[in-house]
């Protein structure tokens, strides 16, 4: 069966196509600001649902690797998002940089994302709403979201994840551009798109579909 990243590519591509088709259906005229915003959101969604981001936007246990398997050794969120007693994130992960000797990735503020930023299992529409909701995105408005994607060091790790991990495919500058387009368009969200995607046959603890 397809790998998780295969499904991701399919889903991402389908989402963008679906959004474009929707946009086209709405008006056969030149793309509107909303269209551009929706298209930009497609790019944003591709990035945040990729393994470098989604692996830590999980409920209880982070995922690891491009194949998104459950983190080995077993770790858990803990009361402060920083792990259980004796198994803190910082027991192994550096708050400075990736460790080339041990292969353990590291970056400032390394932790599981807050539960409000749980993105696993969300539809594109729900993901969009979660991203722009200040109650769930760390109290950020559009400008703060752009700054976050442009300069946050933990976000930046996604482009320099260390050996054995694929960097985020979309260049950071392109993501920032897409953020600006999306925010300028009023952060439009796609309608719920009904897609009959086959279920993930792996049944892995990576919880099947990336969204």
């Amino acid at each position: 069966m397809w790998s998780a990243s295969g499904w991701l590519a399919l889903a991402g591509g389908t989402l963008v196509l679906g959004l474009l088709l929707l946009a086209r259906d709405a008006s056969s005229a030149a793309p509107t600001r909303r269209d551009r915003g929706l298209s930009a959101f497609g790019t944003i969604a591709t990035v945040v649902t990729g393994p470098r981001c989604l692996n830590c936007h999980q409920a209880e246990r982070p995922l690891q690797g491009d194949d998104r398997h459950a983190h080995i050794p077993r770790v858990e969120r803990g009361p402060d998002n920083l792990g259980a007693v004796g198994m803190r994130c910082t027991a192994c992960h550096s708050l400075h940089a990736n460790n080339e000797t041990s292969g353990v990735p590291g970056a400032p503020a390394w932790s599981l994302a807050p539960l409000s930023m749980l993105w696993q299992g969300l539809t594109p529409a729900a993901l969009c709403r979660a991203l722009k909701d200040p109650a769930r995105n760390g109290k950020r408005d559009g400008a703060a979201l752009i700054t976050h994607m442009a300069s946050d060091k933990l976000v930046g790790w996604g482009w320099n994840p260390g050996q054995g991990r694929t960097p985020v495919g979309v260049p950071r500058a392109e993501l920032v551009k897409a953020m600006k387009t999306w925010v300028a368009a009023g952060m439009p969200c796609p309608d719920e798109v009904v897609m009959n995607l086959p279920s993930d046959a792996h049944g892995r603890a990576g919880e099947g579909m990336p969204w």
Partner: protein
Amino acid sequence: MVTLTINGTEHVLDVDPRMPLLWALRDRLDLVGTKFGCGRAQCGACTVHIDGEAARSCSIRVGDAAGKNITTIEGVTGKVAQAVQKAWQDLDVVQCGYCQSGQIMSAIVLLAAKPTPTDADIDSALAGNVCRCGTYVRIRKAIHQAAKELA
């Protein structure tokens, strides 16, 4: 030059700051109680305390450990450590013993934070400490016994 504070003593080392703390301890300072089992933070044999928290020394750069309080198995003191080591001895937890420095260091951190840990707490705290000899049954028992002794 890197200055490391280990078991209360300062050591100035002429060492590449990227060297894992594990090898600085073992190869430069002859503190061989902390063990090498995997080198990739998968087994916990290298566990030390950094500012009281469990840390895998194979995955901590010497440069990043400077200025912190590092404790190894050779230097653990206090009633929690004593209770843990005594319980370990009373119940003959060890078999080959190679993982046990790391197990004990993790157990001390657990009991210091959770004086009456549940089995689930123990599982969570020691999930990163591998024992190939399979002493887990006794590790759990020893932690409960140490907790009782400390109460």
